[in-house]
């Protein structure tokens, strides 16, 4: 196994007076780790810090024991990291091949022949091999994201940090991405942020839920689902007391929270567990 160990130790980050992350800790070695959380929860700040793009205001991050806040550890850690930002952008007039070739050079692939072989490999991995000569401006949003994913795969990184890789992909492409990520997770550590619980349930070996910059849950997808056990019911009308409820196509309401006596209980999903966690402030849970 080629996976890098990742340790995030009491990391905090502030933008001026706004606290984005607070004393957040986690660790991972191999597999797909999904970071779930609502918009503004601090997911992107956390992933940027892991990817060494941004320096955390406090705490430490270690990749294979290397402290990413200091040189020469940081450069060595970067040799092991592949990173997809939340909104990958590229020079619109450059071709797909040029973009990946350029970033391959930045990743120290200096030999032209080997570099081009690696560029072709990663483009094929995201089904962009036949678009290598296209200019970026001719690509759809989903293709641009796949291009972003392709460059993150350069050099077969031991730690992949992907910020919302499934955003903008159609269902077929999402399936292919799931396949790719679970395959990569067998040999690398893959950290993925998403706000799509079905994606997280499908690929994760570990799920981390963060909200308001703090950890709310660390565990498995099944563990997150279990949090909502005996707390999901169906009601014929909008309930007066429920943490969250929403109308379903058949006119009934799916409710989560503390059920009233005699409620019709149903099997929870991971989304129920997630909504329970992020809807009301709770102590951090580990399952």
């Amino acid at each position: 196994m080629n996976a890098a160990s990742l340790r995030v130790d009491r990391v905090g980050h502030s933008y001026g007076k706004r606290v984005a992350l607070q004393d957040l800790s986690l660790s991972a070695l191999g597999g797909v780790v999904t970071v779930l959380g609502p918009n503004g929860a601090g997911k992107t700040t956390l992933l940027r810090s892991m990817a060494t793009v941004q320096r955390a205001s406090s705490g430490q991050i270690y990749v294979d024991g290397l402290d990413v806040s200091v040189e020469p550890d940081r450069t060595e850690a970067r040799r092991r990291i592949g990173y997809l930002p939340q909104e990958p952008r590229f020079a619109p007039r450059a071709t797909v091949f040029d973009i990946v070739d350029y970033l391959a050079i930045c990743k120290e692939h200096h030999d032209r022949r080997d570099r081009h072989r690696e560029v072709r490999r990663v483009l094929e991995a995201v089904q962009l091999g036949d678009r290598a000569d296209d200019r970026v401006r001719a690509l759809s949003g989903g293709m641009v994201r796949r291009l972003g994913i392709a460059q993150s795969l350069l050099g077969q990184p031991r730690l992949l940090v992907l910020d919302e890789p499934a955003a903008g992909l159609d269902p077929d492409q999402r399936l292919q991405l799931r396949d790719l990520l679970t395959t990569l997770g067998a040999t690398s550590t893959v950290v993925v942020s998403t706000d799509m619980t079905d994606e997280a349930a499908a690929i994760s070996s570990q799920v981390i839920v963060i909200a308001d910059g703090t950890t709310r849950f660390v565990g498995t997808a099944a563990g997150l689902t279990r949090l909502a056990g005996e707390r999901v019911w169906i009601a014929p009308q909008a309930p007066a007391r429920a943490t969250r409820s929403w109308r379903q196509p058949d006119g009934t309401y799916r409710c989560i929270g503390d059920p009233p006596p005699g409620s019709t209980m149903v099997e929870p999903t991971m989304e129920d567990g997630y909504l329970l966690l992020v809807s009301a402030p709770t102590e951090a849970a580990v399952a």
Partner: protein
Amino acid sequence: MMIDLPLDASLAQRYVAGSTTAAETMRVERAMDSSASWRGLVGAQVPAERLEHNLAGVVAELDAPKRGFVERSMIRVGLHDHVARLLAATPVMRRSWYIASVLVLFFGLAASNPDNTNGSLGIFLAIAPLVPVLGVAVAYGPGIDPAHDMTVATPLSGFRLLLIRAVAVLATSVVFGGIGGVLIAQSHGIRVVAWMLPALALTTATLALSTAVATRTASAITAGGWLIGVAVVARAADDFTMFGAPAQPAYAAAALAAGIVLFMRRDAFESVEVAS
């Protein structure tokens, strides 16, 4: 077609190993041109690894993106392929070079007017150092380079990339500034090169300042400060005081000082601070 004799496996082996004489090499190659069996015989002597390597080389060349004029020129003057690629891969930067060249040439031509005076030379000397500053402003940083975040996350040092681009911008500016200077050299003599040390000082100061503020802001501050300084001194003394021989060592010292600050604060280029 008949093959010249003697051609055999041992000759093919020696050919593959590169130990044939010139005459033998020609004979083998002539044989391979005309005979599939000879191509097969020679091919069988080549280790599979080497064949794969050679094929990869051919495929790499076929797949390689066509190099643009700038990139080809850089390789021609001896730059490594990957360094040339790093430089040429930022379209914004190339555009800035064109802007820089046009600006310098424009002012060079303006100052070379037959009715020129010290005043027109002063304009050229005041504006020319701003060209590399302008180039640096659009050469590196978030908001300039669309893939900046992805670049920062790679082992290539942001400081190194910035320096590579800054040197390229400076070199280009010197070339175009030099063309502008040549156009007016007949009227003004050696004084037309008096902008070079100020350009070096301003560019280095911009880079040093960009360890604390955005590169564009740093460029605006140094360019604005420079223009105000030139205007104030020109009012108090004359247009050429800022560029005379006594002032030149001061620019060299300023460039050195800014270079030291830049080096000491180089870590600032290794991360990006963006609220998200």
